């Protein structure tokens, strides 16, 4: 490993350093602002270091990590998401209810490190390492409100199911290694072409790996944990689970399936089609039955990952671009939506019940308008990033004539509108109707929260009206899958 390698790794190193620095700082002096500030600063520095790393790509740093432009793009996206989550957490945990909010930021930095490892992984070892770094810190984050039963329950549920799915994943990896003798993504394709290879074993292995990936992405039928974890976790952490952890996994999915040549198997594409259709239908239909905003968003995110799979399956250069663009739009929107929940919630007392959102527009017009923008973006209505994203995904599907998936997307997203509208109706229903809630709305939001939400809203609208800069960036950064 030489200096060039280290420079290419700079973002990862800086994130790792951030977690240590924050930990030491907490040992010296307990200060919420200091911990949050240091974390934000460290993550921002890591973001800035992307520009140092970019000219040194593509470069394989050890067989484990391959840093290329597309990995750096997703690293940037993850860092931006994490920074937003740090700000949201600062606003959320600012009140006195939780006495030790500082360690949270160490965990966030570690989880970010795991995610960034995932997007650069080109080897089963780094894949699993990244996944476990991410998962283990997520257990802590999800049940951070340790006095709350619901939070502990969510954490345990996540722990048990993650452990189970990780063992599936490991078994799959072991089978691949057993049959092919390699764990490097790029060698798998060549090795599996050898005549001595039992293709049945490889097929089983790929399915097992898919279980592990599908669990993290919360695709149907591996989605059971999502609503409970989303409901139980503190709102900003839910935002992290919904965006950063899923985005990292999706980037890995793209890289793994393109490099290992698994994408070319028609049986696997069929499995993906079934998963996509099931996710779109289940996510959108089950969301109709919910009365909790966090659960609605959970099912909505299941559906959105289904849409992403449609783009992923389309293949070709357009698919890579569409996925990257959709993830950008999805990150901004989901962070914004959970940001709104965060603003309205107090630590340990999340505002989930749809009834408490009734008439929000009439006493908190700005927050309600932000929420409206986010919901419309999730629904894919023009002037928002979600619209361009949905357009791109449908275009990717239509470009290779996958009509069944495209029509499923169209029909289910029309169904999806129904629950977004339900929330909108609640927001704008007239104030004289009684507000049946025991949860007091938090009055006034702290400055970092306001800024973050403002920036996210601005991003969602700007991308929706003039997506060209982002599109150019993506076309420059993402290497279309072969």
């Amino acid at each position, binding site marked *: 490993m030489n200096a060039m390698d280290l420079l290419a790794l700079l973002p990862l190193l800086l994130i790792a350093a951030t977690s240590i620095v924050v930990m030491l700082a907490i040992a010296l002096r307990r200060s919420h602002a200091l911990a949050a500030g240091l974390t934000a600063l460290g993550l921002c520095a890591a973001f800035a270091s992307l520009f140092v790393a970019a000219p040194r790509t593509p470069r394989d740093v050890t067989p484990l990590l391959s840093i290329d432009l597309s990995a750096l793009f997703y690293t940037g996206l993850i860092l931006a998401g994490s920074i937003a989550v740090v700000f949201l957490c600062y606003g959320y945990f600012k009140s006195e209810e939780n006495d030790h909010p500082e360690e949270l930021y160490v965990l966030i930095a570690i989880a970010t490190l795991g995610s960034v490892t995932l997007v650069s992984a080109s080897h089963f070892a780094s894949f699993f390492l990244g996944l476990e770094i991410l998962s283990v810190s997520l257990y802590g984050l999800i049940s951070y409100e340790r006095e709350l039963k619901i939070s502990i329950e969510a954490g345990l549920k996540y722990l048990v199911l993650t452990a189970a799915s990780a063992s599936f994943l490991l078994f799959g990896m072991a089978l691949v290694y057993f049959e092919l003798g390699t764990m490097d993504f790029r060698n798998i394709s060549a090795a599996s072409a050898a005549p001595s290879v039992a293709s049945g074993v490889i097929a089983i292995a790929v399915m097992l790996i898919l279980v592990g990936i599908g669990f993290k992405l919360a695709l149907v039928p591996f989605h059971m944990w999502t609503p409970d974890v989303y409901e139980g976790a503190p709102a900003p952490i839910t935002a992290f689970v919904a965006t950063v952890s899923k985005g990292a996994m999706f980037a890995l999915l793209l890289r793994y399936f393109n490099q290992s040549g698994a994408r070319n198997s028609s049986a696997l594409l069929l499995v993906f089609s079934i998963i996509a259709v099931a996710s779109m239908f289940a996510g959108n239909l089950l969301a109709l039955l919910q009365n909790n905003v966090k659960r609605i968003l959970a099912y909505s995110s299941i559906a959105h990952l289904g849409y992403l799979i449609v783009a992923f399956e389309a293949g070709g250069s357009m698919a890579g671009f569409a996925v990257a663009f959709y993830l950008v739009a999805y990150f901004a929107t989901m962070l914004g939506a959970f940001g709104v929940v965060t603003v309205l919630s107090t630590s340990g007392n999340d505002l989930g019940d749809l009834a408490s959102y009734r008439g929000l527009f009439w006493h908190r017009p700005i927050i309600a308008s932000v929420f409206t923008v986010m919901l419309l973006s999730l629904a894919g209505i023009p002037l928002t990033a979600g619209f361009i994203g949905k357009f791109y995904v449908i275009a990717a599907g239509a*470009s290779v004539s996958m009509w069944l998936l495209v*029509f499923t997307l169209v029909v289910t997203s029309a169904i999806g509108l129904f629950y977004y509208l339900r929330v909108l109706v609640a927001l704008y229903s007239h104030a004289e109707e009684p507000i049946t809630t025991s949860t007091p709305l938090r009055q006034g939001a702290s400055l970092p929260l306001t800024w973050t939400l403002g920036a996210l809203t601005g991003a969602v609208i700007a991308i929706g009206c003039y997506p060209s800069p982002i599109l*150019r960036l993506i076309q420059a950064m993402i290497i279309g899958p072969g």
Partner: protein
Amino acid sequence: MILAWLIIVLLGAGVLATVAARWSSALTRWISLAATLLDFSLIVFLWIRHAGHVTLGGSSAWLEQVDWIWISEFGIHFHLALDGLSLLLLALTFFLGVVSIVASWTEITESVGFFHLNVLWILAGITGVFLAVDLFLFYFAWELMLVPMYFLIALWGHERRIYAAIKFFLFTQLSGLLMLVAILALYFLHHQSTGTYTFEYGDLINTRLSSTAALWIMLGFFAAFAVKLPLFPFHTWLPDAHTEAPTAGSVILAGLLLKTGAYGMIRFVVPLFPGAAREFAPVAMVLGVIGIIYGAVMAFGQTDMKRLVAYTSVSHLGFVVLGVFSWNELALQGAVMTMLCHGISTGALFILTGAIQERIHTRELGRMSGLWATAPRLSGAGLYFALASLGLPGLGDFIGEFLVLLGTYRTHPVLAIAGSIGVLTATFYALRLVQRAFQGPNTHAWAIPDLLLREGVVIALMAGSLLWLGLNPQPVLRTFSPAMHALETVVQTHR
């Protein structure tokens, strides 16, 4: 550039009006009124400026254009263009915009700023629909008008407003998505045959399509427009949405949103897919005729005055479909004429219904009776527009429906005869409306104020323009004919 300003003025005024509502709701109303009046005068200015050129008929029928690159990665342009057809519909748009703002001057008292934001943004979306010649931009504008309309119904509507608003939104959104898929299919097929990615109307119109592909893609467009129009059996959202919407919402829905569907049929469905459209024409025309008769029969059975007027829209728009799919000069002129006159006469009926509801707090015909005794000006206006709706010669609606039937008779005499039954049934529902509401003894002893000056001026303007269209339709037909010839040449060359 002036075309972009038409939209910018509306969007900007919408934001300004919302901000102004913090200080005074009167200021909000005046800002909105000024913006729509400004746009109306701009379009009249364009009309006068091009009045001489319109008849020349050059190679391009576009009178004005704006073409900016928007999202170059997909070949998307911000391309607006105006021809005679768009010009007429825009004049109607801004006229009804002014009318609906004046009509809701006292009706809307809650969150006035947000109300006017929605009204102005719907108008901006409609303007975009009538001007866009880039299919992506068209879809963008098409979707843009939905959200504010949804809010308009859901927030300021009547008893069952949430149900009506959601139904409206789901119907239009689902059909709109089908159109998006169709647009994209056309986009990729065009790329396959020519190697360029473009959403430009003028380029896509020359795409060579196999007849099956053309039929399926056409059906995607047709679905969106048929729901908006609304064509039987896709009409079920309409009575609910019209009835529950506030007056301004009903006027804009009936007067303008329905016209975007008809406009889409004329501008896109037939020119883009002439062969498929001709094959499909009998189906569409039969549905149109069913709509004419069904709408009239349903209207006759209603006891809610607003619902009655809503069903008449189904009937009148059936004539438009009949005219469009006959695709000859007379029928098309009739269709456009019907679109304009229906916008005005139905809009006026909704305003009168709104005025009555504001005064007696009911829309039930059974609770009215004998209003003539207490509000003669209002009742007289009601009679006038009911007669316009039934197609009394001398008023605009007659010209439209007559031309449609005449044009249709040349190609499909049976359908024309069936359609003319609709004219007959219109007499029943229109006269029933007048007799129940205005004539007879004033059994409920209503004593209500007559039309105010503000309402009177609006109604008089609408009545006057209907009379003008009915007695002297030539200027309108002259404005439209070069646009129609241009469309006609496109269709002819591709047959």
